[in-house]
């Protein structure tokens, strides 16, 4: 294992100190328990947004704390959900009197720990709503699985719900917007190489030199099938197919297209993927009116990509365009 770290046990603690040193203009960091809060939190009269989960997916979630997006992010150990304590502390720290929305990716650990934190917050008279993000079409949503996973669509939920909170929507309205975005976004990813969790020291899974994993999860969980490496266009077709069928998307739709790098993918490759994805959508009469390309929801050094398509309407587009000022997403101010 080759990593720029000092001790696997201190990865998150030290990274958070670095984050604070680099972005002290945007955020305040609590070190015990660990959470990252918007500098001006709590914002009185505004619904607070808290998200979190295992670390290793940076910039998610800490990179999205700031004006127009999250009020706080709670990073757990690498690939492990945070416990209820820091979630509760963050929830209390950002409550501006209008209640707090928890945005939770659908993983058993995240769901259970946020659930406990929400119970504890309620006991302290903070109103909490929870929206579970489960945009990953690679997993069948049935009684026989833990349900669809929350993956790159999370960044879209956080941005758009954040904008709704910033414009003054109340807790129910912000939760409704987040639920709506989650309902209209579909994602699927592919891994070319595995990632190495620092404390594990070995790759999370093994792929042969000519193998890729279609439908990968953001912790390296396997997806639909393991196949031989194919040209980028063919891989894009495999990812977009299930995405477009699922909602389903239709001719005439306006969409946001997100091509998300898994952490170790060169940017030229992301744009090659974007090119073909946009072409396929155009062929189907679907218009890409907003786009996002880069590393937003990563899996450490994994090479691979996920494609997300979010069906837009005037409201969502307006909220997407609204100003945002975070370490990893910024425009309009």
């Amino acid at each position: 294992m080759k990593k720029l770290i000092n001790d696997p046990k201190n990865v998150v603690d030290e990274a958070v100190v670095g984050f604070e040193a680099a972005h002290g203009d945007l955020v305040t960091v609590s070190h015990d328990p660990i959470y990252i809060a918007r500098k001006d939190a709590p914002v009185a009269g505004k619904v607070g947004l808290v998200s979190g989960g295992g670390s290793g997916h940076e910039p998610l979630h800490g990179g999205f704390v700031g004006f127009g997006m999250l009020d706080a992010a709670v990073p757990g150990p690498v690939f492990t959900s945070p416990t209820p304590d820091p979630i509760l502390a963050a929830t209390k720290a950002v409550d501006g009197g209008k209640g707090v929305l928890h945005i939770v990716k659908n993983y058993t650990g995240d769901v259970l720990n946020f659930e406990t934190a929400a119970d504890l917050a309620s006991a302290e008279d903070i109103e909490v709503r929870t929206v579970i993000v489960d945009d990953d079409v690679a997993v069948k949503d049935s009684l026989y699985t833990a349900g669809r996973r929350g993956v790159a669509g999370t960044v879209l939920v956080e941005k758009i719900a954040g904008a709704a909170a910033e414009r003054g929507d109340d807790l129910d309205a912000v939760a409704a917007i987040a639920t709506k975005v989650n309902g209209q976004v579909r994602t699927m990813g592919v891994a070319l190489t595995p990632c190495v969790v620092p404390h594990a020291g070995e790759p999370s899974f093994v792929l042969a030199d000519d193998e890729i994993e279609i439908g990968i999860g953001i912790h390296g969980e396997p997806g639909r099938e393991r196949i031989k490496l194919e040209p980028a266009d063919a891989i894009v077709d495999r990812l977009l197919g299930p995405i477009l069928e699922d909602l389903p998307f239709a001719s005439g739709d306006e969409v946001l297209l997100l091509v998300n790098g898994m952490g170790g993918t060169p940017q030229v490759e992301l744009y090659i993927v974007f090119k073909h994805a946009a072409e396929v959508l155009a062929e189907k009469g679907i218009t890409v009116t907003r786009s996002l390309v880069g590393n937003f929801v990563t899996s450490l050094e994994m090479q691979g990509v996920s494609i997300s398509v979010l069906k837009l309407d005037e409201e969502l587009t307006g909220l997407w365009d609204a100003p945002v000022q975070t370490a990893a997403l910024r425009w309009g101010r």
Partner: protein
Amino acid sequence: MADALGIDWTTDWIRRTAQVVHDHRVELVTLDREIGDGDHGENLDRGFTAVLAKLDTLADDAVPGDALKLVATTLISTVGGASGPLLGTAYLKGAAAVGKDEQLDGAAVVAFLTAARDGVVLRGKAEPGDKTMIDAWTPAVDAAAAAEAEGRSPAEILAAAADAAEKGAEATEPLVARKGRASYLGERAIGHRDPGAQSSSLILRAAADSAAGTGGAGTGGASTGGAA
């Protein structure tokens, strides 16, 4: 009730568990890497290390339920992941079931195990055969109940539970998972043991070993009282 289990057993079990989890850290990480995300051993090691560090905060007159509740809250606040809240809830509900009892007899042990298992089901909604820690806990509860019905001692009941949990963990190998991360694997989970079932069986074996060592003739300063 000479063979009931008191606070000494409880703290011994906790220490033993911390040791066992630490010793099996790599094994549990490996199992979890195969069908999960490779952190289960790390998670539990972190949790029980934290529990150990808090053990001396127990009052001198602490009863088993106090120690079990300490385990519960500490696991909940230090483990994270799926296993933190699940195991934490197990200890929490188990602690509630034994209440303020100073000595746990066979019925109390069965009540503890049953409540613990029910706690996991309450939070995680897994059924037997879903390839989760439930597949260790449920046979353990059943075996414990049977042993208790036969009038066995608490130590024997725990030994029966541990035996059953071990078999249960082993029996997860051919299963497809329907809960937790392993459920994303579909058929590919077949042939791998569930890490949570394995760790639960280790924890229950530690309970039995502690009972064999510290249970019995009311040894230890705290095992003075004891109802029923």
